């Protein structure tokens, strides 16, 4: 068909013996926005990378503008008019915003010299639309995650590709920025740009896309046409993705305020972000941190874990004050952290599964000096089984695990240590629906057995589904504490958005 800008027919991709894509079909008509959904391991990441030129397919055809193509590198794809919005993958940290945006496609003056003046002129227009608060001369390394993502977006759009792949472009953005992005996308669509929108956020995909393709287990599970009206097809879509209904454990949440207090923070502040935060966590309680992106959630988690310095305030464990709070204190007290970026902070990527899963148990001070082989195998076997981690053998390197399974590895390494409090930074970010449900089931189960949780999630539905209480953060302070009784996502969202700063220690 001539009105398809991109068509993939029975595309397969094997890595070693594993088939990441197994005969997937995909179509994107000219001038339309197609959503691409699927669990991690469904092949949508692989498909998008093939389209963008990172991989060559093992078999099958990819037709671009009606002609069969097989790109050897992203450069070839870019030259053909295909662009991609990465997840902070294509920004050079030591360079400025404007140098990054034009990297690879710099306009030239005579004799091939870079035309700096034209760049700076053009750029002002692009930046002003999405992120007027970013200056072109800023070094990329100094930007927050939302800024990085916005620069990636501007970078991709400024090249006016004929076909643009957007890979999870909204994962670090606030509502307002997402709306700006969507209005830009609609405008570009009018001018004829075709787009693929990859996301885990089904509502967003429903909002902006003309149709949706769902991948499952490496092949196309089905397509949903939204052009007839954006009626909520949510259930259909979820069923296509998982094969069954989405379930987050929505057990009855009750306030646990009568339980003994495990940790109390009084008036803690750090150098830049947190201001006079006070909170209480009871035993077996699941406390959520809500708020717009970048209001201090990650910093609070890391400070309580002892990995960020606090400039004032104090922390009490079971009513006993602990001076000079540090990671060593936290770990000794059974307080452990599940960091935000599993690949760079939570896992030893090239190491086997058993190594990752038993690492804290093997290396913490109270552990035996010599590690018994048999015991280690036993423990890892149990853990992998209990946490439903899909891995072919205990020696498999974690690089070959899907996102959901990898995240389970990150969480499971703390299990044998009898954690009293787990601090989690967006634990379900970027993992598939099935694994997400399993993860939260584990969290709820542990809470019932006495482990406390302090976690923040960018998807508010996760918080609503499993937290006992939710603390709302704004600009580094807690502005409201909400009991999770009859709370729904919209109410929570509106509380996060319409907040003034109230700089008082919050009574618990």
């Amino acid at each position, binding site marked *: 068909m001539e009105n398809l800008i991109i068509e993939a027919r029975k595309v397969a991709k094997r890595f070693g013996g594993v088939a990441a894509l197994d005969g997937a079909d995909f179509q994107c008509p000219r001038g339309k926005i197609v959503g691409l959904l699927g669990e991690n391991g469904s092949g949508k990441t692989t498909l998008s990378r093939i389209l963008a030129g990172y991989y060559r397919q093992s078999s099958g055809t990819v037709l671009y503008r009606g002609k069969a193509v097989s790109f050897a590198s992203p450069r070839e794809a870019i030259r053909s008019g295909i662009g991609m919005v990465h997840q902070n993958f294509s920004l050079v940290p030591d360079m400025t915003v404007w140098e990054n945006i034009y990297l690879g496609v710099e306009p030239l003056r005579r004799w091939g010299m870079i035309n700096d003046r034209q760049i700076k002129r053009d750029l002002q227009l692009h930046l002003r639309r999405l992120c007027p608060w970013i200056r072109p001369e800023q070094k990329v390394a100094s930007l927050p995650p939302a800024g990085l993502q916005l620069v990636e977006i501007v970078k991709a759009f400024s090249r006016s590709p004929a076909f643009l792949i957007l890979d999870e472009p909204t994962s670090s953005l606030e509502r307002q920025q997402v709306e700006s992005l969507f209005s830009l996308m609609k405008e570009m669509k009018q001018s004829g740009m075709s787009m693929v929108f990859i996301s885990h956020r089904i509502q967003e995909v429903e909002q902006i896309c003309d149709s949706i393709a769902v991948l499952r287990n490496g092949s196309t599970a089905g397509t949903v046409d939204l052009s007839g009206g954006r009626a909520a097809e949510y259930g259909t879509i979820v069923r296509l993705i998982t094969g069954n209904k989405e379930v987050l454990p929505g057990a009855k949440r009750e306030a646990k305020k009568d339980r003994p207090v495990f940790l109390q923070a009084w008036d803690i502040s750090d150098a830049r972000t947190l201001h006079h935060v006070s909170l209480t966590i009871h035993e077996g309680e699941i406390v959520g941190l809500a708020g717009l992106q970048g209001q201090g959630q990650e910093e609070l988690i890391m400070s309580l874990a002892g990995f960020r310095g606090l400039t004032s305030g104090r922390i009490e464990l079971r009513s006993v004050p602990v001076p000079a709070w540090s*990671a060593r204190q936290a770990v000794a007290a059974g307080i452990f952290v599940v960091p935000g970026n599993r690949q760079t902070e939570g896992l030893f990527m090239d190491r086997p599964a*058993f190594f990752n899963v038993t690492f804290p148990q093997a290396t913490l001070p109270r552990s*035996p000096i010599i590690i018994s082989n048999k015991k280690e195998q036993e423990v890892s076997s149990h853990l992998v089984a209990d946490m439903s981690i899909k891995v072919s053998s*205990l*020696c498999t390197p974690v690089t070959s695990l899907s996102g959901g399974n990898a995240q389970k590895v990150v969480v499971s390494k703390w299990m044998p240590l009898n954690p009293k409090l787990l601090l989690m930074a967006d634990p379900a970010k970027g993992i598939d629906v099935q694994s997400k449900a399993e993860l939260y089931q584990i969290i709820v189960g542990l809470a019932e057995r006495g482990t406390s949780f302090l976690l923040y999630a960018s998807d508010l539905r996760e918080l609503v589904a499993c937290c006992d209480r939710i603390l709302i953060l704004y600009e580094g302070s807690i502005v409201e504490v909400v009991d999770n009784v009859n709370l729904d996502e919209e109410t929570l969202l509106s509380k996060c958005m319409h907040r003034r700063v109230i700089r008082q220690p919050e009574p618990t």
Partner: protein
Amino acid sequence: MSDLSLIPYRRNPGEYWRDFSKEIISTLLAVVVIVLGAWVSKGSADWTYLLLRIKVASFIGILGLIQATVILSGRGGIDVSVGTMASMGLLFSAAIMRGQDGMLVPALLAVAALGLALGLINGYMIARLQIHPLIQTLAMSYVITGIIIVYSQGRMLLGRPSPALEAFVNNKVGPVHNMVVLWFCLACLMEFMLRRSRVGRKLVGIGTNETTARLSGVEVSSFTVGIYGFSGLSAALFGVLLLGNVHSVYLDVGNQYLFPSVVVCAVGGLSLAGGSGSYVGVLGGALVYTFLQSFLITLKMNESWRKVVFGLILTIVLLVYSRSKRQK
């Protein structure tokens, strides 16, 4: 809760290749080079010669084990000061011992303490002040060279190894030299520690991903300081072993072991980025290195050709390793 018997440790033999390819390659290479050498020299070589070469390999190999520890710890860590530490250990222990058995232990202690102190300084600068390991250890080697020169005042040095030391270094256990036995035992011990001890686990973790290790509760800074303290200490003690082997005491004796210590790690398949590789690889690497040299000498190559061929072979081995890594 699923049936735990379904998750095997390793599912198939292919996994063994994935996990141990570098060690296998370096061992095979060692065998090939040794056999080639024996075949080429056809008769003029005998067991004694072979065992003597292995003794030479053991010296290089021991320093290689020390260097491997630093390389495993990651961050592009290479201890360029081990050569000068060894020289220092040799000179100072000779001066303290002066050929007397009774002074052997004090000499060992003094040298160990000095090596430890200097190594800890290295570790502190690298871990706390974030100075690149290459630069820091390079600078330390300048300093140690300076100390040695000041101490020796450029004169010929007095001092001799004690008879017990010489005996230990030069004697044999049956047909095998003491040093070879020592080397082999050290390698086995260190390999065991690497895989099965808390310290070894931390080392591999830190070398693979420092951030993850820290967030998993490991005190990375202190451990790094300790690693360089260890390398300083053991390099200095290695110098004492060298003393038992040489007939005259001179300044540069330790430096000639520096580059080989890095080469045997590379040939043994250790990744210079850290975290990957094992001491078993160093065994193979040292044997390859030593026997390759003697093989080239047997071929009656002069020094220039030997260097060229050695460089070419090393380059080819590295290319092979990089290909096997990319296919994973």
